[in-house]
């Protein structure tokens, strides 16, 4: 088994430009340090119709009212501002930005553990045709590699994604390599499980990372 950079077609080149936008890294860093309530606020604002900050402050009094400490309020303000920058990019662009933010958040949290964290990588196995789609984030440890697919919402979970993750796991097992395969969804566990419950694709060996446990990405697992 080995990792390889994915070939870039025209669409990938455009997306790479979004991934490289400093806004993506800044927003991901704010989300990495955010509370669960702040992450819901960011999700709502990036999904929102209105882009005036005052509306969102009124919608989240626990973050912007008089009760929270100044430090939390300041962090929430910066997160709201960055989220609204994404919302202001327009409908098509914001969808790409949201995906890029979840990928970057995943990479930043995984980087807390150290190790080699990479993006847009394919995994090649002996005698197996290569998958077309690269994995969003990989941790390329020789002893325990990890591959991650990232989704903005539970609706993005589909059979193709689940099959590709499970294929990676089984092909690695054929080479006697234990690989962690995971799906990161910037959404509630309940939503993701409802989506998964209707899918017949294999998922028992795929780790599910959702808003409730996303911080665990930064902690080495057994």
């Amino acid at each position, binding site marked *: 088994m080995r990792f390889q950079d994915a070939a870039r077609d025209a669409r990938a080149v455009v997306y790479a430009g979004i991934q490289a936008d400093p806004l993506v890294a800044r927003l991901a860093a704010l989300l990495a340090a955010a*509370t*669960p*309530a702040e992450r*819901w606020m960011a*999700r*709502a604002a990036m*999904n*929102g*119709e*209105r882009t005036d900050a005052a*509306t*969102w402050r*009124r*919608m*989240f*009094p*626990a973050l912007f*009212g*008089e*009760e929270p400490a100044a430090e939390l309020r300041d962090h929430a303000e910066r997160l709201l501002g960055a989220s609204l920058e994404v919302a202001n990019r327009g409908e098509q662009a914001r969808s790409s930005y949201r995906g890029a933010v979840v990928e970057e958040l995943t990479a930043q949290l995984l980087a807390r553990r150290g190790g080699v964290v990479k993006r847009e990588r394919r995994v090649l196995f002996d005698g197996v045709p290569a998958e077309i789609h690269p994995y969003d984030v990989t941790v390329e440890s020789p002893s325990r590699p990890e591959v991650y697919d990232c989704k903005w*919402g*539970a*609706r993005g979970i589909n059979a193709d994604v689940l099959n590709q993750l499970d294929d990676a796991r089984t092909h690695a097992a054929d080479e006697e390599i234990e690989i962690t395969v995971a799906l990161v969804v910037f*959404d*509630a*566990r*309940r*939503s993701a499980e*409802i*989506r998964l*419950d*209707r899918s017949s694709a294999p998922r028992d060996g795929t780790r599910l990372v959702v808003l*409730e446990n996303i911080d665990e990405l930064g902690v080495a697992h057994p």
Partner: protein
Amino acid sequence: MNDRAELVDNAAAAYRALADLAETIEDEWQYVTDLTDAYLSAIEALAGTGAPLPAGAGDAVGEAIAEIGLITDPHRAIDWLSTFPHVVALALGGDVDGEPVR
């Protein structure tokens, strides 16, 4: 009807309208139905806590209802089917997933 019950009632009505819009994506009908079944009852359960309303809860729920009322794109409506219940729960101080969000 007390303030909390009235806010929850309004939120539940807005959520039903959001689900009606989301349901127009035929390929996602089952997912939308499953999500709505789960979260509508969770929103309604927020009325029964009896806890005093946190400061700003009325405005917060009102803004959340106004926000989803602006949505005309059914794809965007699906995005909000899981988000809206959590925004309401944060405002009212309850939870819709079996664990509080803080």
